[in-house]
């Protein structure tokens, strides 16, 4: 498991750089496998502590089991949980039938932007991985966002020798990506190795399906799978050639590029 230790060492280093350089730091937690591994790595970096708030941008369409899991871990690990929601958009009836990109932008991107503005966060830690989809493969570990939260992928800062972009003009913020080098298999290997509690929607619970990627209930479909253990998931992933986010509706066409340019996770 040497390669997992190497990934862990790099992620921990990134966490500590972020904590040192940002006065108002927060971390996104969607309760999915990636951001839960991220949370675990924060506890590694800070010796059992999580010295910044965890943000959950609640679209109100999450699967209920995810909310139960969130509240349980927040209690057990003494987390500072901050829940944000775009109440205006929800009151106006926003849902996925109004267009998936429109809905994701309103409830997730704008929900996050509102939270960042209210709390004045200057550094946001996220669990995006380079192998998830094309635009994330182009990310930096420390990635600037402008005053509108937008991402200028045409002009990204250089990043070398573990020296990151930690200075930025007032009003802008930095997205921090400690999991960039991890693959989907690495995530599951690490969950197993460290025995990290995860949500059982990722396993087949008897109906021959499981979730491979978790999002909002209307826009996430389970895959056919009989994987009932983490080992079975790892085995399955080793043989699959189906993309991880194939069950995520907003990825269709060029959805992710458009979403991410505007500040989507």
């Amino acid at each position, binding site marked *: 498991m*040497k*390669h997992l*230790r*190497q*990934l*862990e*060492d*790099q992620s*921990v*280093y990134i966490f*500590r*750089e972020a*904590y*040192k350089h940002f*006065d*108002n730091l927060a971390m996104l937690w969607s309760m999915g496998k990636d951001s839960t591994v991220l949370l675990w790595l924060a*506890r*590694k*970096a*800070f*010796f*059992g*502590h999580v*010295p910044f708030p965890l943000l959950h941008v609640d679209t109100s369409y999450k699967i209920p089991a995810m909310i139960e899991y969130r509240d349980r871990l927040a209690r057990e690990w003494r987390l500072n949980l901050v829940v944000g929601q775009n109440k205006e958009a929800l009151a106006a009836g926003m849902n996925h039938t109004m267009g998936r990109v429109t809905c994701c932008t309103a409830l997730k991107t704008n929900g996050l932007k509102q939270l960042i503005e209210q709390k004045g966060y200057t550094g946001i830690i996220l669990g995006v991985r*380079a*192998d998830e*989809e*094309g*635009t994330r*493969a*182009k990310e*930096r570990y420390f990635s600037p966002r402008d005053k509108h939260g937008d991402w200028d*992928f*045409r002009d*990204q*800062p*250089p*990043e*070398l*020798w573990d*020296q990151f*972009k930690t*200075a*930025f*003009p007032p009003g802008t913020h930095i997205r921090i990506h400690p999991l*960039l*080098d991890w*693959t989907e298999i690495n995530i599951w290997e690490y969950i197993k190795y*460290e025995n990290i509690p995860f949500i059982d929607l990722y396993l087949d619970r008897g109906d021959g399906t499981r979730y491979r990627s978790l999002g909002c209930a209307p826009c996430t479909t389970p895959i056919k799978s009989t994987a009932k253990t983490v080992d079975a998931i790892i085995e399955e992933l*080793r*043989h*699959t*050639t*189906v*993309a991880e986010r194939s069950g995520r509706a907003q990825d269709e066409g*060029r959805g992710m*590029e458009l979403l991410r340019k505007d500040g989507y996770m």
Partner: protein
Amino acid sequence: MATVQARPTENLNTVIVGHVDHGKSTLLGRLYADTGSLPDGKLEKVQAICRQQGKEFEYAFLFDAFLEEQEQGITIDTARTFFTWKGRQYIIIDAPGHKEFLKNMISGAARAEAALLLIDALEGVKEQSKKHGYLLSLLGVKQVAVVVNKMDLVGYRQDVFDGIEKEYRDFLGQLKVVPERVIPVSAKLGDNIASRSTHMAWYQGQTVLETLEAFRKETARGEQPLRFPVQDVYKFDARRIIAGRLTAGRLKVGDRLVFSPSNKSANVKSVEAFNVEPSPTEATAGQSVGITLDEQIFIERGEIASRQESIPLVSTSFRVNLFWLGRRPLERGRKYQLRLATHEVDCEVATINRIVDTADLDQRQGGNVVERNQVAELTLRTKSPIAFDPYHAFESTGRFVLVDEYDIAGGGIITELVHDEQEFLRDEARRRDFAWVKGEVGAEQRAQHYGHRAAVVLLTGAPQTGKSFLARKLESVLVAEGRHAYLLEGENLRRGLDADLAGSDLAGTDEMARRYGEVARLLIDTGLIVVSTTKAFGSAYAQAAQAIRTLVHPAPVITVHMSKVAEEPPSDTDLQFAGPKDFDEAARRIIEELKKRGVLAQAIGGKPTFQYSI
């Protein structure tokens, strides 16, 4: 096509570089397609988009994720892709070859352990082919394979290939880089990518895939002497943990560590970790760890821990090779932030020795500025001394980046130390500190007792500018506030400790400054805030101030420059008062500065820093 892969046991970061249009993304696309590493439907999806847009399918489109990349047919930013082959997971970094995107190429190549450098057989060796070769050597990528692409366009002719191989080997030879191999391929048609070409019987060497397999994993630097740059100090609970990542060597519980440039030392008491049973007792190069020490010494981010017999170099000046990526040119005299491992310090360019022409390495150019995308040899000077190594001896502590305003604007490697005028005193201070005999009461205990740390406030400037008056005022205010401050008056040393130096030629001034610094050092050890002036040194005040700084290092020194009219103060000035002065206000501002620097306890506010800083 589903492939069963062995469990990966290691990762290898590999970068693909080369001139624009020489076929990097195509090579990558082909490699994935021919090894069955693409997700189901990816090939078909991209082919469908091409049909829809009425253009010919290219393998490059598989990895050019942005609309603009596909439309312009060039890679704009580095992309990371993954594939597993024979038990090894490759993280392949596709770096853009266009001149404008050099910073992205560097971001990609800087994290690579091996590189494939592409050259177009039809176009031959181009400007960026050479620049990328040069930068790979500067970035420390030691394993390089040269891939001569588009052999189909030159009729698979061996003489064309041989010509390019010779020209490029000669160029790399000047950089002391020996390519692992040079491979003729056609990425578009799949010749010598994953399978052997039937068109080039004259080539008996390895394919690109075989070359990847033959790249060696970088061996850990565990056998080198220890280098442990301090990243942060945490006090989340009862433990005071020094966090950081070992960049070389190893450490274990009980080891004696020396921290540079502060010259403090202590023994490793424990190695701390979360969810590791049993607790580790040692750590090795590459690991991000936390340790506790057996003694409460004050150390900060940026210091490098080592063993006493192999400490890093310490200076304010060194020669470097640098590449510049900034929006505005690098200029002599302008201030930049230098970041080396975890140390961040202000610096300026002392001299630009030459601009390197990466196409013709013998060519020398002079100049006062380094333009974007140029490479240069410089001498840098930092505001305060830093610990470092020459790059040829230690990679991670021998390289640095420069930050211009908000951006990382350049990077480089240190080629040699430049002796500065403080070297002699610095050696004296080091020998003295290593051998320092301590009492039972430590600096932290004194700081807790007094409610502040020890520090020096040094008032400098020409005669008759109010230094002594302000010093007296400051001492009174501090003591009235309950601080333990003491006015160190040069006049008292001159007639006593320095009585043998009467006649004061220049050597006398040097020796006076040395004694002054050593007295201040003793007072610092008592936990006092020492308030003093350079009055005794007359107009040689700047030189004396530097000597005093060196000798009391690493105690905080606040240098306050006084003048009758506005003037350029010495470079290490913290506060400046010019013209007619409100001395109460001046004293108040110095006290603010003491708080800001964490000398006075009130400075700890807002966010808990978990730093030991009382």
